[in-house]
């Protein structure tokens, strides 16, 4: 999903308190904002929830690209509702991160200057309308797979925002699949367009789960703290297993010759994505990294006077009210 390669922060707290904290987590208790927590737990969560929030916000851009060009009014209203949901999801998550002592503006600034990341998937372009189908079906599908277990994460505000998000997100995947169903029933050209979207999105979607477990160095502490609930490869396998029959239903071919059912494991074998490409995209060298940050920077800069003016207006109104009351 939306949090990849979250570096666990080392923690230098009193061993006694750390042990008590771990016992609370092991007992399934939720940690709330005012509770004592190790510094590493707090920092890792800020990084993870922040990256998740940024992904929701930046994730509006590739889909926003097609709102004005949706093929029918109904598709347009559906897509608009989905993109609006993503804004809401970003807000829930920013608020959850803020309970850990970081401000909204700080997080935005860290996104803009590259100190914080967002999911690699949003650095790929959406070239045709079929991409709206593939994004909903695969990208939201992968996101849900990661977010459902996070409803049980140890940090209360994060878990609660995940519950809301999961409730809303299943519509996203369905609307994407619905677009794909219409495309594959259309003309030959439309069917080709659907296949092309799947071809381009498949491996980037697999990358959403983060690097292979053997290269995933930050997992064990996060899993002990229940910030991360499953390993990257577990979730990726689950995604492949669930998606293959859906592709079959659509009559589309997943672009992987090695994708085969394995009787022994009870799972599909599949080819791992090109991890060099993944690390390049994370480093900022994907096809759309520069565009995405430029768009966010522009919105931030051009919205500054609106944010200031609204605050000034509210203060003026408060002043007038106080004066009125005094007289």
């Amino acid at each position: 999903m939306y949090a990849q390669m979250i570096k666990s922060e080392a923690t230098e707290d009193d061993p006694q308190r750390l042990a008590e904290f771990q016992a609370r987590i092991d007992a399934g208790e939720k940690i709330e904002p005012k509770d004592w927590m190790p510094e590493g737990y707090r920092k890792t969560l800020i990084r993870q929830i922040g990256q998740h929030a940024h992904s929701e916000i930046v994730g509006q851009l590739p889909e926003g690209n097609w709102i004005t060009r949706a093929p029918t009014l109904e598709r347009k209203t559906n897509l608009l509702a989905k993109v609006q949901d993503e804004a809401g999801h970003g807000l829930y998550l920013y608020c959850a991160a803020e309970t850990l002592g970081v401000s909204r503006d700080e997080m935005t600034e860290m996104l803009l200057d590259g100190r914080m990341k967002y999911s690699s998937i949003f650095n790929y372009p959406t070239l045709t309308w079929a991409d709206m189908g593939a994004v909903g079906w695969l990208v939201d599908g992968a996101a849900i797979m990661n977010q459902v277990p996070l409803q049980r994460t140890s940090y209360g505000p994060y878990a609660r925002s995940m519950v809301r998000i999961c409730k809303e997100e299943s519509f996203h995947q369905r609307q994407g699949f619905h677009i794909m169903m219409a495309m594959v029933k259309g003309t030959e050209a439309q069917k080709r367009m659907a296949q092309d979207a799947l071809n381009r999105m498949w491996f980037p979607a697999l990358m959403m789960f983060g690097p292979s477990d053997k290269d995933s160095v930050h997992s064990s502490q996060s899993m002990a703290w229940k910030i991360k609930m499953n390993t990257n490869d577990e979730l990726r396998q689950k995604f492949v297993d669930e998606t293959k029959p859906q592709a079959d239903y659509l009559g589309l071919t997943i672009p992987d010759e090695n994708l085969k059912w394995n009787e022994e494991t009870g799972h599909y074998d599949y080819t791992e994505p090109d991890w060099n490409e993944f690390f390049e995209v994370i480093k900022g060298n994907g096809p759309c990294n520069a565009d995405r940050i430029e768009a966010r920077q522009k919105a931030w800069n051009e919205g500054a006077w609106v944010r200031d003016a609204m605050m000034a207006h509210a203060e003026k109104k408060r002043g007038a009210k106080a004066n009125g009351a005094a007289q």
Partner: protein
Amino acid sequence: MSKEWPLWEIFIRGQHGMSHRHVGSLHATDAEHAIKNARDVYTRRNEGVSIWVVEAEKITSSSPSDKGPMYDPARDKIYRHPSFYDIPDEVGKM
């Protein structure tokens, strides 16, 4: 330069007859603005019939470290529950 909008806690009455329940928070310039934003952020799917907004810094909350002294005294007062009192069956429903 820019000052961040204050944080508001949002409470929503899900349906008639229920209490308002905390659903989350958001930033807004004033109470009226907070209600408008809460409508967009927290009631996109008919989740509510009424909204309360409270500026987060105006809320006073108990401290987690007081958990023991605050709540433990209630633990041994089992006579506050109806099941403490045995009433013979022949008395009927009570």
